[in-house]
């Protein structure tokens, strides 16, 4: 209050054109002139790009020449450039928190038509900022130490790559995977587009590298159940589900699996997309990491009834089997978190016109991936349900993509993997292969070339979205086969094409539980369920929560190269924080003015971080600024008005309110 009254407040005001982004809508000159007349303002300038070096230099020069002690910048959102200008102030020898930004781009120029109303709004916002900045006090920077350990959630290629990058850099990484093995979707693929190198050959070395790396604590068959704390110091609770095996003892010799009283598997094998059956004790797939078996409590007689010969136990010379194993909760402390929780594929049953689940020879693309895989259920042979080879195969693109009735987005990988499958099917069976597409999207290195190669191989590309897959025959040659009805939009007529096998290029979707996950980690999520990045271009792997990063398909559909690139970026972001050792925090914490505190204890239960306690001797509340996150809930609640928040004090806000209206 005092500070306001004395006249030594010297404000510099700067309004940014942002090219034409702002100047095209708001009369910046008029606003600058207006600001010049406001109390405390000693310089008022407009400039093309305030965030540019010359723009910042301008401020720093004025600080010297005009002895500025407050600065207001009217440009874009503070969430984007507040940091930039705070640094500029600091560089000019001014306390960085004597800055106030006015968001006249996102909140004005970009949302209003050019003209007086937009300019009038800018004046009001500027007025408020200038009135408020006079009240802002220089503040100390606030820092917190960064715990060097990192949590990576999800063991797909993204999680694997991020973990290895950090571990190789000497960090300790906890890699937590929900399934019994790492590898994710990629482990199921046979080849990868467009190079056609074998997925296993490039993935499994990385998987075992994870298994062997001393710096990586690999917890598979485990889930995160609780996350507390904040950047630098997260406390995470992990649930480790029982696999009824001592991991360290099991060597994956598979004797128990052979010895199981079930001679044949009876449970659908989800790793093979339901194309084969597995036993109650099993290893997801030969190169599983860790190479450890697990028991399925739904299927195992011993676990269900407790009445089994337990032939498995007899043969296990490592004595690794424990039917009494219980799930356990483990607590870990980490400084940063990388979410790589991946995606799920669209369920073809949601489009009944394609007959998935009705016609036995309609397959999902993932099923065909398993089929063409030499270690898959059919040893790499493309087979119809009756065991024979298809003579004609139709691959339907965009199943559950680009469709307002299912998923609006383009899943980005389907065109390419469909072409890959087309190539492999042709190679394995020499069948006639038809691709039914709306648009071919091959925007990657070597992708268009791959498309060209497929065309040369004689794969048919028919531009049209398939209307139905049916088993009724209009003509002799259609009898006993599946008929695809589609408009050949380039030829300009409707066609009926009989095939033996239909492959649905199912799109990518957010994981079913993505909403719960993002709640647990306190990050944002698009309405569809993709995790939201801090900035679509400039902060693609950051989230709005410091210290939590995202990588891979949990952020949106993408192919393996992009996923790996993002994983590397996320690792680098985490590494940068760790390497700095400390992170600067907003100094917007709250404090109690002891003289005014009545000791009523209203505030204490309100604080979600238990930062407020009561000095029983002085009978006053005290706030531990190290714990305070600066939400200001206590400030608003304090009956005696004795709690203040830095950068958001009542008088600062009141002055803003008055000026913004006046």
């Amino acid at each position, binding site marked *: 209050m005092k500070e306001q009254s004395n006249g030594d407040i010297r404000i510099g005001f700067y309004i940014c054109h942002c090219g034409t982004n702002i100047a095209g809508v708001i009369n910046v000159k008029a606003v600058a002139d207006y600001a010049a007349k406001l109390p405390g303002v000693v310089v008022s300038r407009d400039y093309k790009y305030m965030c540019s070096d010359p723009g910042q230099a301008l401020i720093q020069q004025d600080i010297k020449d005009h002895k500025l002690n407050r600065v207001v910048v009217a440009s874009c959102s503070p969430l984007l450039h507040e940091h930039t200008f705070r640094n500029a102030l600091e560089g000019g020898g001014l306390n960085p928190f004597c800055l106030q930004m006015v968001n006249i781009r996102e909140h004005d120029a970009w949302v209003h038509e050019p003209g007086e109303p937009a300019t009038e709004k800018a004046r009001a916002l500027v007025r408020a900022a200038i009135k408020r900045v006079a009240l802002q006090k220089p503040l100390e920077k606030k820092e917190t130490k960064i715990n060097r350990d990192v949590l990576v959630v999800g063991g797909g290629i993204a999680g694997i790559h991020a973990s290895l990058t950090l571990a190789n850099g000497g960090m300790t990484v906890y890699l937590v995977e929900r399934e019994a093995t790492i590898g994710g979707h990629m482990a199921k693929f046979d080849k990868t587009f467009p190079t056609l190198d074998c997925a296993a050959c490039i993935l499994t070395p990385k998987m075992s590298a994870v298994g062997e790396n001393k710096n990586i604590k690999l917890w598979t068959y485990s889930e995160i159940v609780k996350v507390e704390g904040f950047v630098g110091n997260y406390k995470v609770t992990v649930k480790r589900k029982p696999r009824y095996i001592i991991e360290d003892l099991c060597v994956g010799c598979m004797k128990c699996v052979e010895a199981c009283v079930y001679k044949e598997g009876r449970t659908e094998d989800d790793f093979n997309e339901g194309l084969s059956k597995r036993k109650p004790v099993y290893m997801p797939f030969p190169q599983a990491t860790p190479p450890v078996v697990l028991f399925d409590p739904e299927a195992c007689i011993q676990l269900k009834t407790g009445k089994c010969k337990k032939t498995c136990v007899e043969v296990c010379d490592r004595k690794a089997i424990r039917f009494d194993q219980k799930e356990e909760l483990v607590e870990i402390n980490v400084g940063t978190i990388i979410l790589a929780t991946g995606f799920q594929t669209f369920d073809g049953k949601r489009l009944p016109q394609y007959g998935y689940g009705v016609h036995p020879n309609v397959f999902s693309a993932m099923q065909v991936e398993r089929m063409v895989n030499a270690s898959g259920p059919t040893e790499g042979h493309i087979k119809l349900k009756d065991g024979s080879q298809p003579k004609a195969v139709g691959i339907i693109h965009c199943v559950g993509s*680009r469709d*307002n009735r299912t998923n609006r987005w383009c899943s980005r990988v389907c065109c390419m993997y469909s072409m890959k499958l087309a190539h492999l099917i042709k190679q394995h069976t020499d069948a006639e292969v038809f691709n039914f597409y709306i648009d071919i999207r091959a925007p990657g290195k070597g992708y268009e070339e791959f498309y060209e190669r497929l065309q040369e191989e004689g794969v048919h590309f028919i531009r*049209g*979205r398939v*209307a139905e897959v049916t088993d009724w025959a209009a003509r002799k040659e259609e009898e006993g086969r599946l008929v695809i009805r589609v*408009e050949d939009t380039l030829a300009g*007529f409707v066609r009926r094409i009989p095939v033996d096998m239909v492959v649905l290029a199912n799109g990518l979707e957010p994981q079913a539980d993505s909403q719960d996950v993002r709640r647990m980690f306190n990050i944002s999520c698009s309405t569809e369920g993709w995790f939201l990045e801090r900035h679509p271009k400039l902060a693609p792997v950051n989230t709005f929560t410091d210290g939590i990063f995202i990588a891979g398909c949990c952020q949106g559909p993408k192919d393996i190269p992009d996923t790996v690139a993002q994983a590397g970026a996320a690792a680098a972001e985490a590494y940068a924080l760790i390497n700095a050792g400390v992170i600067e925090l907003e100094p917007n914490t709250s404090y109690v003015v002891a003289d005014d505190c009545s000791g009523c204890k209203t505030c204490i239960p309100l604080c979600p971080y238990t930062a407020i306690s009561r000095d029983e001797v002085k009978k006053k509340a005290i706030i531990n600024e190290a714990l305070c996150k600066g939400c200001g809930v206590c400030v608003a609640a304090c009956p005696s008005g004795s709690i203040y928040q830095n950068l958001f004090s009542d008088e600062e806000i009141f002055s803003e309110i008055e000026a913004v209206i006046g």
Partner: protein
Amino acid sequence: MTIQQTIKYDAERDRNFPKEIMARHGCEKLYGCIQCGTCSATCPVSTYMDHTPRQLMALTRAGFKKEVLSSLTIWLCASCYACTVDCPKEIKITDIMYALKRRAIEEGVYPKRFPIPILAREFFKMVKNRGRITENELAVRMFLQSNWFAMMKTWRLGLNLMRTGRFSIKPESMEKPEKLASLFQGGSR
């Protein structure tokens, strides 16, 4: 054989046509069409059309009014709504077809002696006069104006209907069709 040139000049385009159509109820999303052809492929009669429904969307959007309104396609649409429920962009193609039919009638460009618009018109008249439809009478009127020869061929059908008592001798009607008058005021749209 004679060859003929096909090329469209921009002058043949009616720029307002697409806007006009989209202003009609249910036709708003026309511009959202991605030309995927789902409509043509689900359509049971597209195989008889001169332009497939997809092509008609493209022509309408581009403003080729003459081609669109004189197309048989709009009259062949049997209103089975297969396209409308399957369009990935939720375009109500059936409604667009209706809008185009109405436009064609307004402009008087629909194919002459072509039974379907005649049926529509006769249906319209009969409802106006009696409030209800008498099917066999409607059919007769339609044939008389389109292709009376075709009717000769349907004598057997007529007989069958009489034999099975499905042929209405006395016309079906409301007691007081004039009650509908208020609905017909203010011209047709």
